[in-house]
């Protein structure tokens, strides 16, 4: 495995997009771009699965299995037998 961070759970359905561009506003890594009057999923590999785009998409065009990208939290959660990963 050369890079664990190239694949993630972010999915974008352009047919459902109403071009409100909220995803381009809230994404902290510029994963989405406004191009020629439409939103494009341009850099999916940059996604950190924070979920901001999905939460703020009014048409359900975006889905992502959001969560905390923290090894410590994930390992502690697994050891405790919990399901919800939280960093504090």
């Amino acid at each position, binding site marked *: 495995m050369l890079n664990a*961070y190239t694949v993630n*759970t972010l999915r974008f359905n352009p047919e459902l997009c109403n071009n409100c561009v909220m995803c381009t506003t809230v994404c*902290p890594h510029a994963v989405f771009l406004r191009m020629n009057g439409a939103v494009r999923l341009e850099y999916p590999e940059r996604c950190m*699965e924070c979920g901001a785009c999905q939460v703020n998409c009014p048409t359900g065009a975006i889905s992502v299995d959001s969560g*905390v990208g923290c090894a410590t939290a994930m390992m502690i959660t697994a050891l405790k037998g919990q399901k919800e990963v939280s960093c*504090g």
Partner: protein
Amino acid sequence: MPSQTTDTPAPNIPTISAHITLANRWDHLKKRLGFGRNKSHIEPGLYAIGDPGPKSPVFASANYSLSFDALRSALKRVDGYILVLDTKGINVWCAAGKGTFGTDELVQRIEATSLADVVVHRKLIVPQLGAPGTAAHEVKKRSGFIVQYGPVRARDLPAYLKTGEATDEMRRVRFTLKDRLVLFPVEVIHMLIPTAVIALLFYLIGGLPAALGAAVAITLGAVLFPILFPWIPTANFSTKGFILGGLAAVPFIVIRFTGGTDTELWQRSIWGLTHLLLIPSITAFLALNFTGSTTFTSRSGVRKEIFTFFPVMAWMFGSGVVISIVMTIMRFIRV
């Protein structure tokens, strides 16, 4: 309660200052060092800054003092209101991830403070990093207030307020050397006691070189890795940690080979092997655990790293410890 509360320009709305006092700076320093992070939360509610009127902007914030102080200090020449949400003393981004900085709390706080009676407009400037917990369209539906996402960093607010728009750069999260250096003091303080305890344990199973090796591995993984990692080759945190730990193991291996001339070559070789197993595995484990402090690692990626590299780390560490114990026992019984 905020330390800068003074008079009230309107009934029940305390006024806060944009000035950061020496006491505030002392509070920031303590928090940066990891002390009192769960103390001195800002009381949730509505605050006035400057001399606001019914048309003044409203900014949302968390009730973590560093978040709140970053916001108010960025509003030095602004008349407005700050709506502090109850995020249980956690910063905006982390609280948004947990949902405490989110739609429900925002709507509830708008109602609890009667914000609609304080201002005539229906706009609320929310920090962009609050977006993972805030559904702007839901807030509008439930409260009538339109969420406008401000820039990532509070210090960009004056520029944002001039144009009403954040530039692309204002919307990007970075993780610069300065950002990483801020983590340095707290990492040092958090690792002091664990390092001493682990070094002592390693002293018992492998002598002074093992204790020093453990201390170096922990220092590298927990303290220096956060600063150095962008310059270490490979994309995964675990492999970066293996590389850093592998390099650190080299001098220990050389010392084992050249220092213990009273022991057989095979014994010196095995002691050298223990360093090669232990130091990289410890450094890699700590490097993997740094993922939670970064601003860009995804859950999918971290999960992949754990499943791929954690078994390797565990195997290397376990083998190193077992071999060290066996070698120490053999030394005592003079094999």
